[in-house]
């Protein structure tokens, strides 16, 4: 078990693509750190550099106190998990889990000790003699997980291991993997493009885009206090509403007068002091807007769509050529075409600089 530290990592591919651009990042011993971003953001390249599958152009990688830049993958004491493979149908759960240890010639009593320990953590001791066919699907998943983690490396590196599973299995595996990681206490770097996986599994999330590290923080930090417009648009389901505004006096004004948001003087002052130009972007989450039928409120608009999602309703309201999304309790019943007012929870909104794309308040 060890800390993983990446310092000023740069990776330029022979074709000139700058996949990773001066990224510095550390996962303390035992942490579950998620690298999150869309395809092409550099998250997998970063992971592959840590694994030793790619040689970085510059920068250093530490595992524990050791610089591992020049070590081949086999000497870095890491386990790379691409996906949780199907079990061997002709082997018992025990033999499935023991497989990776037998393959490298670990002694039988050591294998037994480790299999029992993993089986205990995963609550599958009672199925160790069974073959996959006679286990429930939940038991099969946990056996597959056990096999993936039976080697006890310093670090797990996981690259979208849940991607090919169906939705129900994926959410079960998320829960079991998170629990197992905490029990084992092995530092884990986990790459995904799925913000739900990142939010639910990561102790911290590192958000990347186009090779740059945008923000590192706990799930709630990146959700509530996105540092950049990109993070705001990438984290959260639905994503944060981003509305172009300008500061007039102490109020944020939308393009056409349908939005007017009075701010506390100190907040307005802070924006004025930090802004690089007149263009601002108001960021507000769908659950931080309240709808009402009256004409009080910060914005007025018309309901474009209402989507019932079972445990909540998602409204879309047209405002100056864009759509604002609002989530409410499933019982609200505004109809399409209804004129409504929107009130914004000022304690939970963000204001970004449109030019630098960074959060101001």
């Amino acid at each position, binding site marked *: 078990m060890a800390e993983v530290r990446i310092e000023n990592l740069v990776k330029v591919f022979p074709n000139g693509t700058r996949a990773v651009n001066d990224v510095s990042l550390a996962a303390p011993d035992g942490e579950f750190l998620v690298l999150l971003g869309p395809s092409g953001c550099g998250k997998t390249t970063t992971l592959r550099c840590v694994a030793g599958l790619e040689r970085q152009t510059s920068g250093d990688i530490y595992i524990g106190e050791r610089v591992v830049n020049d070590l081949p993958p086999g000497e870095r004491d890491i386990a790379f998990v691409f996906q949780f493979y199907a079990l061997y149908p002709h082997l018992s759960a025990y033999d499935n889990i023991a497989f990776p240890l037998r393959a490298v010639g670990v002694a039988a009593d050591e294998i037994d000790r480790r299999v029992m320990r993993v089986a205990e953590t995963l609550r599958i001791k009672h199925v160790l003699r069974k073959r996959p066919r006679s286990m429930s699907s939940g038991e099969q998943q946990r056996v597959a997980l056990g096999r993936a983690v039976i080697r006890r490396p310093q670090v797990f590196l996981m690259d979208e291991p849940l991607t090919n599973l169906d939705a129900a299995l994926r959410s079960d595996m998320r829960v079991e993997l998170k629990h197992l990681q905490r029990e084992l206490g092995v530092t884990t770097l986990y790459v995904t493009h799925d913000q739900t996986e990142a939010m639910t599994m990561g102790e911290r999330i590192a958000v990347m885009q186009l090779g740059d590290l945008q923000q590192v923080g706990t799930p709630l930090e990146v*959700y509530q206090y996105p540092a950049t417009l990109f993070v705001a648009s990438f984290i959260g389901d639905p994503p944060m509403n981003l509305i172009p505004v300008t500061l007039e006096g102490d109020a944020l004004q939308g393009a056409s007068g349908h939005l007017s948001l009075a701010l506390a003087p100190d907040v307005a002052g802070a924006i004025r002091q930090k802004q690089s130009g007149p263009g601002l972007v108001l960021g507000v989450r769908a659950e931080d807007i309240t709808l009402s039928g009256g004409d009080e409120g910060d914005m007025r608009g018309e309901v474009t769509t209402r989507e019932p999602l*079972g445990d909540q309703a998602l409204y879309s309201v047209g405002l100056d050529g864009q759509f604002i999304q609002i*989530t409410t309790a499933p019982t609200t019943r505004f109809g399409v075409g209804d004129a409504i007012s929107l009130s914004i929870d000022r304690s939970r909104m963000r204001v970004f600089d449109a030019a630098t794309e960074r959060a101001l308040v």
Partner: protein
Amino acid sequence: MSSITLQNLTKRFGATVAVNDLSLHIDDREFVVVVGPTGAGKTTTLRCVAGLEKPDDGMVLFDGQDVRSVSPAERDVAFVFQNYALYPRKTAFENIAFPLQARNLSAAEIKAEVERTARMLRIHHLLDRRPAQLSGGEQQRVALGRAMVRRPRAFLMDEPLTNLDFQLRAQMRSELKRIQRELDNTFFYVTNDQVEALSMGDRIAVLNAGTLHQVGTPQEIYEHPADLFVAAFIGSIRMNFLRCAFIADTGALVSADGGWSLPAPPRLREGAQKSKDPGQLILGVRPEDVLLSTEAGNGALEGQVYVAEPLGNHNVYNVRIGPALVRVKTPATFMLDAEARVSVQFNMARAHLFDSATEQALT
């Protein structure tokens, strides 16, 4: 604009029954979503409607007319796929205008029609661009525009949003719903994504392994699932299922491992009595119908937090109650320590009861 009726539709591929005796009626101008996992028979159903597959049994009717002898082209339906094959060398305008070229329209008429369509799709500022200069969502809209200018009698859509990233998918969901209403045409849409089904469909048909499980409005399907499959498939956080037995003498539901006993309200009691085997029931509780507290409550079950999942706008706690793992949705502000001991209450007024053997809902 047509109604579409599937009457006892069956389609086999060799020994595999892809669609099994499916009957479903889609009203003129209705948005019906067929939802189910891979292999449910969704695409095959749609291809039978389009005339691309020939049913082995049963038939397809448009406005009550059997279309068995009508060729795919003459069926006059637009088929929109996840892979929108646009002409790469043509501009968005030319792509959308393409189906109109074959008709006897003046250039001015074509221009007017393309621009009207592009405005509805909000891509009128992109008409000069070629596909490579458009985002995935914009390309999808161009493909839709090309289908729209034909003014077909119905739109058949096969997972058109699958290849978009989730932010764009969410945006396109509400856009498609708006477009359907503005076009005022029939949409027959298939997807494996239950969120798309709930959010877009006037009605939803849940299909699995070729068999229709339930048809209803989103609210009906969510609040009154007809069987275990529908209950498990619909809902962003899966419904909890707890094996239990109904004890007629005490009117209580007792868990299969004997770890808990809960009084059954009249609705559940009546349901339990409908079962041939009240000793083998499944209690279904949605994650938002479970209440957690750190204080011991009257009649509450004892549990322990196994894994917490913060999602920003809410939390999901996975709580162990004996051998079972129960998913609980809480407000984002409700914070518990890892492995905290909690008391758990089910909102029995909203709970469901299923028969283990038939898997049918009893409530």
